[in-house]
């Protein structure tokens, strides 16, 4: 019970505020570069040691390092990703964190750490870039609001990012789930507007690094009806992007593939949401002549929370996870990686989201980590 300690703890809010202010000062100092040297760009992390040959080269995870400030923890995360048997990691790099104040100032301290850690661990990084800084969107608008008059600013930022990490990062996801209203600035989703964004960004990125691979955003798996005010069915959205002329402006497609309550081998179907949803997305690509472009699963997986209606039991989650990696490797030559959500959260969410993870916040591997590691180590 907390109340008996209340009087003794009355000073704590004041102390907490002081600590918070100190923390903010340190953070701002770090961001402004006074404590953390963020320029010039760090030397390329030596990658002379070739990637050791994994049994399944498509195994990946979505890391969650955005709120992880400790360099040691960032490094440990990537080392553990690799030790599990994964060679791919998706991580997001919020535009608003790196170019927080205006178009001419950057804080590369955190992305430098993440990119260096991935390279040091021989993990191939897929960088998702979105979340709009306040200066590039209307006042009090959503972080995902990007109006057309700021497409160029976003493209500038992505191109700068790509140039900085040329040779270290090769894959970039342009935006996230633009087929749902809350990822499209609270506005009605608009595939033609997204296609227009791709048209602005693509040439800028290629100019910065011709070898960079541009991934169209992973779409939220959804069967929303045509008149839905909040989302558009993923396959319909992708079709509409092609119709709007967006096809030439991405090199590959990111796909979100959550198994929900179905196993990894559940067959695909136009009206089914499962891991094989990726085949439906792939069919749209083929129908639009893009059969030569690869697919990357950049989110997906299973949840074993006893409190969530879309969860499975813990053994089912483990079996489906291993089977999903295997299915992609065996049956989907056009799919280059499967990065499942989420390797580790910096702190517990105290919700069903905790039951997606492979590693606990204190870095102790969960059983699923060991089971995947065992499966990937077996001949």
């Amino acid at each position: 019970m907390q109340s008996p300690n209340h009087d003794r703890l009355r000073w704590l809010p004041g102390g907490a505020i002081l600590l918070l202010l100190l923390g903010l000062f340190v953070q701002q100092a770090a961001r402004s570069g006074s404590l953390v040297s963020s320029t010039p760009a760090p030397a390329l992390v030596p990658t002379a040691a070739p990637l050791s040959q994994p049994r399944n080269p498509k195994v990946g995870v979505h890391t969650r390092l955005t709120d992880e400030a400790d360099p040691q923890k960032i490094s440990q995360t990537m080392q553990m990703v690799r030790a599990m048997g994964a060679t791919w990691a998706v991580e997001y790099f919020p535009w608003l964190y790196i170019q927080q104040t205006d178009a001419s100032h950057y804080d590369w301290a955190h992305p430098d750490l993440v990119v260096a850690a991935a390279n040091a661990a021989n993990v191939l990084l897929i960088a998702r870039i979105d979340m709009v800084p306040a200066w590039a969107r209307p006042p009090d608008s959503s972080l995902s609001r990007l109006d057309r008059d700021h497409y160029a600013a976003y493209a500038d930022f992505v191109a700068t990012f790509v140039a900085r990490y040329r040779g270290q990062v090769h894959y970039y996801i342009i935006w996230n789930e633009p087929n749902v209203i809350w990822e499209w600035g609270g506005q009605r989703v608009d595939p033609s507007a997204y296609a227009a964004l791709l048209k602005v960004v693509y040439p800028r990125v290629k100019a910065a690094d011709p070898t960079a691979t541009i991934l169209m955003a992973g779409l939220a798996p959804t069967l929303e009806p045509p008149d839905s005010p909040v989302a558009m069915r993923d396959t319909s959205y992708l079709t509409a992007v092609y119709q709007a002329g967006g096809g030439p402006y991405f090199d590959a497609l990111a796909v979100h593939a959550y198994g929900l309550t179905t196993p990894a081998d559940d067959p695909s179907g136009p009206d089914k949401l499962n891991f094989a949803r990726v085949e439906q997305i792939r069919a749209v690509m083929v129908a639009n002549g893009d059969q030569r472009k690869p697919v990357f699963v950049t989110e997906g997986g299973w949840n074993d929370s006893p409190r969530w209606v879309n969860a499975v039991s813990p053994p089912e989650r483990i079996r489906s996870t291993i089977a999903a990696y295997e299915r992609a490797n065996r049956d989907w030559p056009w799919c280059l990686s499967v990065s499942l959500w989420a390797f580790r959260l910096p702190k517990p969410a105290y919700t069903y989201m905790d039951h997606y993870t492979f590693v606990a916040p204190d870095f102790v591997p969960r059983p699923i980590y060991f089971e995947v590691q065992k499966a990937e180590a077996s001949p």
Partner: protein
Amino acid sequence: MKKVLLIGLDLLAVTTLVAVGLLLYYGRQEPADLALAQVRASGLLRVATDATYPPFESYTDGAYSGYDIDLAKLIGARLGVAVAFSNIPSDSLYQALGEGKVDAIVSALPFIYERSNDLIYSRAYFNAAPLLVVPAASTARSLSDIAAGKLGAQLGSDSDEAARRWQRDHPTGGLQLATFDTPTAALDALAAGQVAAALADPLEFTAWQVAHPAYKAVANLGEAGYVVAVGKQSRQLARLVDETIANAQADGTLARLAARWFVATPNPGR
């Protein structure tokens, strides 16, 4: 004149001392619990619950039921008021409490340290941490006592995770882990003599033990207490909640609730 002045100063000093004393005395008094006053005035305790987690709470055919529902009614009875439940998704429970839309949350709520400055948590009324289960005749009290034997647990479960953590922390302990598809299968392996002990979810064990009285739970492996939450200013209400829980633990009411809800409605399929 000087004497009058001195007397005046003395009076002023005494008055000041009395005033300061009164201020200190009444300043130390607990502020009124307006939420509790409102509950008593309205005759209604407003309780938030995410009624999607049987056997703790569910909502069927217009009625709430479950272990937590009965616990909330006990609290209501202690206050002498009726209980009005609101079915609120788990990610909005705290918001409802913070906005004063409810007086308490009773919803298999885990203690979250980071939130504990913004509200008052009750004492824990249920520990959801895995239970170590052994034969009734066993003298084992902890995993250390069965470290030479084999331990059964459901693959990937909290029990499995707890066992692997123990192995990690006791690398020379010699504990072997055998994993099974369900908690019941792990417990059945214990009954069949295939393992020396099992770790299981408390709900699963409570249901399983009915048909297996020759086995007992000796300890939770850790703390995962479920608590009631009330508003930050509701100290008196918090105390009454604590008293209700303590009394229900002492007089066996909580054990009867467990028997009623966990045996009759075990957690399906986990």
